[in-house]
């Protein structure tokens, strides 16, 4: 990315570098020997835990048997992938995944932007800091903690939400086992946990806006809302688009932990997503090859999504993420 030789105009200057004698290259490599030593643990990590699993994807074309290993297992071609698209279960979990993703984009994504705009309008750094400290906090709680708090609050066994419902004369609701409540709870938990943290980057880019623009707008008689609409929002447009790309790129990556923790036998129909299905089918039921094929499918869709959305944003004149 930052390869200087890629820049037009500097080519002629740097050309000699290409023809450098191999002894000179050796000298440079030797001079940087400690740097290479430094890279070893990191490279080892990426090879072992990132690239070896990518190689492991080939078991999705096999009938993988743990005792025979990758080299000994039988090849079955595209069989598992064919099964994927004919299996009604898979169509259902793909649907569930896409619905949760759509909720993420429509209901969660705008919240940090709005929250950042509101925080930015606060006078006095004390209150600003104070609010930020409070709304950042849930981000650091694990999903287990967030889900646990939800459980003790909504349980019918004396949870505060149900107590309040009956106090005001409503019927109690079994939020945890009622499939209709899974999606609303899912998105509320995400907003609750991440909305505050999501404001950081927006606040930073708002802070970089030239205050002169606001002064000029005020001279022209623009009120607060108009200033937000005509100055702040356009100024953070590219940040919004960048974050949207990242979000869309993770289309099928809704987070295993969160959903897995909320999943139970009653809400499985709406709550089972690709990640949780891979876990159940793969590790619980031992269908290694089939669930690897599902995971493979998911990773490829993710990659295609990021690349295409990125391209699209570049076409629209934005920077893109890479």
């Amino acid at each position, binding site marked *: 990315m930052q390869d200087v030789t890629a820049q037009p105009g500097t080519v002629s200057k740097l050309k000699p570098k290409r023809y450098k004698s191999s002894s000179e290259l050796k000298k440079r490599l030797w001079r940087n020997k400690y740097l290479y030593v430094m890279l070893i643990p990191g490279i080892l990590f990426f090879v072992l835990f990132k690239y070896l699993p990518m190689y492991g994807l080939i078991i999705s074309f096999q009938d993988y048997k743990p005792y025979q290993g990758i080299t000994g297992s039988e090849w079955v071609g595209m069989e598992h992938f064919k099964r994927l698209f004919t299996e009604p279960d898979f169509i259902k979990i793909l649907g569930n995944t896409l619905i949760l993703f759509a909720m993420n984009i429509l209901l969660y994504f705008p919240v940090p932007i709005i929250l950042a705009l509101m925080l930015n309008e606060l006078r006095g750094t004390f209150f600003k800091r104070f609010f930020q400290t409070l709304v950042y906090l849930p981000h650091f709680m694990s999903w287990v*903690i967030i889900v646990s708090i939800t459980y003790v609050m909504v349980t019918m066994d004396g949870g505060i939400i149900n107590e309040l419902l009956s106090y005001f004369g409503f019927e109690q609701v079994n939020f945890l086992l009622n499939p209709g409540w899974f999606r609303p709870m899912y998105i509320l938990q995400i907003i609750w946990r991440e909305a505050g943290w999501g404001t950081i980057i927006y606040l*930073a*880019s708002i802070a970089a806006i030239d205050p002169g623009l606001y002064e000029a707008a005020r001279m022209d008689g623009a009120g607060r809302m108009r200033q937000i609409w005509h100055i702040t929002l356009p100024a953070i447009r590219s940040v919004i688009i960048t974050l949207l790309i990242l979000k869309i790129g993770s289309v099928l990556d809704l987070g295993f932990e969160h959903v897995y923790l909320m999943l139970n036998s009653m809400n499985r129909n709406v709550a089972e997503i690709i990640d949780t299905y891979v876990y159940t089918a793969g590790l619980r039921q031992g269908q290694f090859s089939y669930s690897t094929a599902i995971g493979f499918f998911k990773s490829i869709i993710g990659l295609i999504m990021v690349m295409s959305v990125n391209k699209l944003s570049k076409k629209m004149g934005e*920077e893109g993420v890479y």
Partner: protein
Amino acid sequence: MVEDRSLGGRVFAAVNFTLLALIALITVLPFVHVVAGSFTTSAEIAASKFVLIPKVWSLEAYKFIFSTDTIFKAMGVSIGVTLIGTLFSMFITALMAYGLSRRDLDGRNVVNFLVVFTMLFHGGMIPTFLVVKELGLIDSYAALILPSAISAFNMIILKNFFQNIPEGLEESAKIDGCNDFGILFRIVLPLSMPAIATISLFYAVTYWNTYMSAILYLDDSAKWPIQVLLRQIVVLASGMDHSATLDAAVPPPDQSIKMAVIVVATLPILMVYPFLQKHFAKGAMLGSMKG
């Protein structure tokens, strides 16, 4: 922001302030509720509908959860994994980030690309599980650390931070006879404390919150970290699964006990948060820069 003293401006500010106060309240109320609930008896929770400040204070729940050594052990595992994991991750992340931050390193673009690529595409849960298994890490604490030892994202943040340190400093150190390790540990790292603090916090929180690796790689319930135990006690405890939670003879834990476990599992984060909070806003902004 310049003050706007017009009537409209004042109304705007007041409404905005009120809304934000409300949002902040909604954010913290659940925690307050849980903390308060953990310090009272279950009878009190059942009797008074809304506990924010308990009428009857009680340590009953805490006495109960610490009456067996299950929680102590799980806390020990979590603390150990967090300390060792964070140190290890910081160490190898910093080494790699520094190596890659040096523009004169041949091949850095290739390595960079290979790192970024892992953020776009990955092998997924099952192949990773198989690798961990083949390496013989199942049921070892190392399985909670090694497979997630470097976060590509954290590494890139740190690399970008290192790149912004003036090269002259490194060069003069070199002239003074420092090798690359010396430059990293004596010059670059001390200058990077805000970034180091931020990323350490990120790693520490991740390790403390470790749940998925534990359920994937640990079959032995005696090795469970606090997060897995918390789930056993709060989520599964409605009589569904008693294996290796608290004693099987004990009835499903009631509200105040569940709340106490939640507090215990959250406490360490609440304790480090104020100290590191000033750093991470800065650190997250570094993360938004591209490189």
